[in-house]
């Protein structure tokens, strides 16, 4: 899902930087107000986890690969705004150092995987987990469903951004200038592999790590109560 350089035209990647920037700004402001010193090491851990989990490429029928992102997990444990920062840092390092995702596509990739991934994952988790005990199975199910839907939403966004290129970026002779595949190809291709495989991988990773926290560090799952202002 890391869109490389050359797949999005300037209109799209420019717009995506413009759309993502306010989210980065708001996330920074939010962290400035709410981040506690003792959460700082967890944010570094979250970013590192996101970085390394994305290196676990999984093959899928049709000869392509995909991977989990860890975004929903981080959003559940640290909140959506911290997740946006953590996953964005991982994506930016991947683009700059490893050429995984383009530098022109940093805005788009961060929007798809960090911003929308984090907000959707957190929102769905909150919705399903509301009122449940931190150690309940409902939390695990909520995390798994949130992770599945979140990753699929991110993939769909990437597919749309890629799929509109042949419509909006073509040479005078009608040849595509950037990503050549239309929506009718990009959406089924991206959606199917994420619906059938990668979404489940993200869900499993999320539920497994949540289970670990339930057993060993259940306070980490108290974020829902924290955000309602209960003093801890």
């Amino acid at each position, binding site marked *: 899902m890391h869109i490389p350089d050359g797949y999005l*035209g300037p209109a799209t990647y420019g717009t995506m930087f413009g759309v993502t920037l306010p989210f980065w700004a708001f996330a920074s402001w939010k962290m400035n107000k709410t981040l506690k010193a003792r959460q700082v090491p967890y*944010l570094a851990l979250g970013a590192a986890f996101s*970085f*390394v989990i994305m*290196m676990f490429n999984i093959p899928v029928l049709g000869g392509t*690969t995909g991977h989990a992102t860890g975004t929903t997990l981080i959003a559940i444990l640290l909140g959506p705004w911290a997740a946006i920062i953590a996953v964005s840092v991982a994506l930016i*390092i991947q683009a700059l*150092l*490893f*050429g995984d995702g383009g530098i022109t596509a940093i805005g788009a990739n961060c929007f798809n995987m960090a911003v929308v991934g984090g907000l959707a994952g957190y929102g769905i988790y909150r919705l399903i987990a509301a009122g449940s005990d931190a150690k309940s199975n409902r939390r695990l199910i909520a995390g798994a469903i949130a992770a599945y839907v979140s990753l699929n939403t991110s993939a769909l966004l990437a597919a749309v951004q890629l799929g509109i290129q042949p419509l909006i970026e073509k040479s005078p002779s009608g040849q595509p200038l950037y990503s050549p595949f239309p929506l009718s190809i990009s959406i089924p291709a991206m959606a199917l592999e994420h619906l059938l495989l990668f979404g489940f991988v993200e869900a499993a990773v999320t539920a497994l790590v949540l289970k670990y926290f339930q057993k060993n560090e259940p306070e980490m799952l108290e974020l829902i109560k924290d955000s309602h202002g209960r003093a801890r």
Partner: protein
Amino acid sequence: MRVNSDGMATIKKLWIGIGILALLSPLGLIIPAFFGAGSAWGEWGLEEIKKLIGFIPEGMQKLAELWKSPLHDYTVPGQKPGLTHESLGYILSAVIGIAITAGLAYLIARLLGRKNKEN
């Protein structure tokens, strides 16, 4: 979020977990190679695109070579061919990437959280 006496221990344990993931990361290379799977959908290189559609789109050609990443595709400079060397390069890339990502995230979090009264 409370960090009590075993709070440090938790962070240490989680870092060990990240270390294990770094060591296992070549699975993300070996398993796709075993099944003959290539790039992710929409992440093909210029050569692959040419094979897929018969030509390289003009704009793509220009933008694709905009940035030369130092550890391209999680390989280290001077890396020899073969899955063993690729795996070692992949682990080294993971370690470097984890260190820089965590370091940068830590720095940003410290700077952003600085004004918080609860610190």
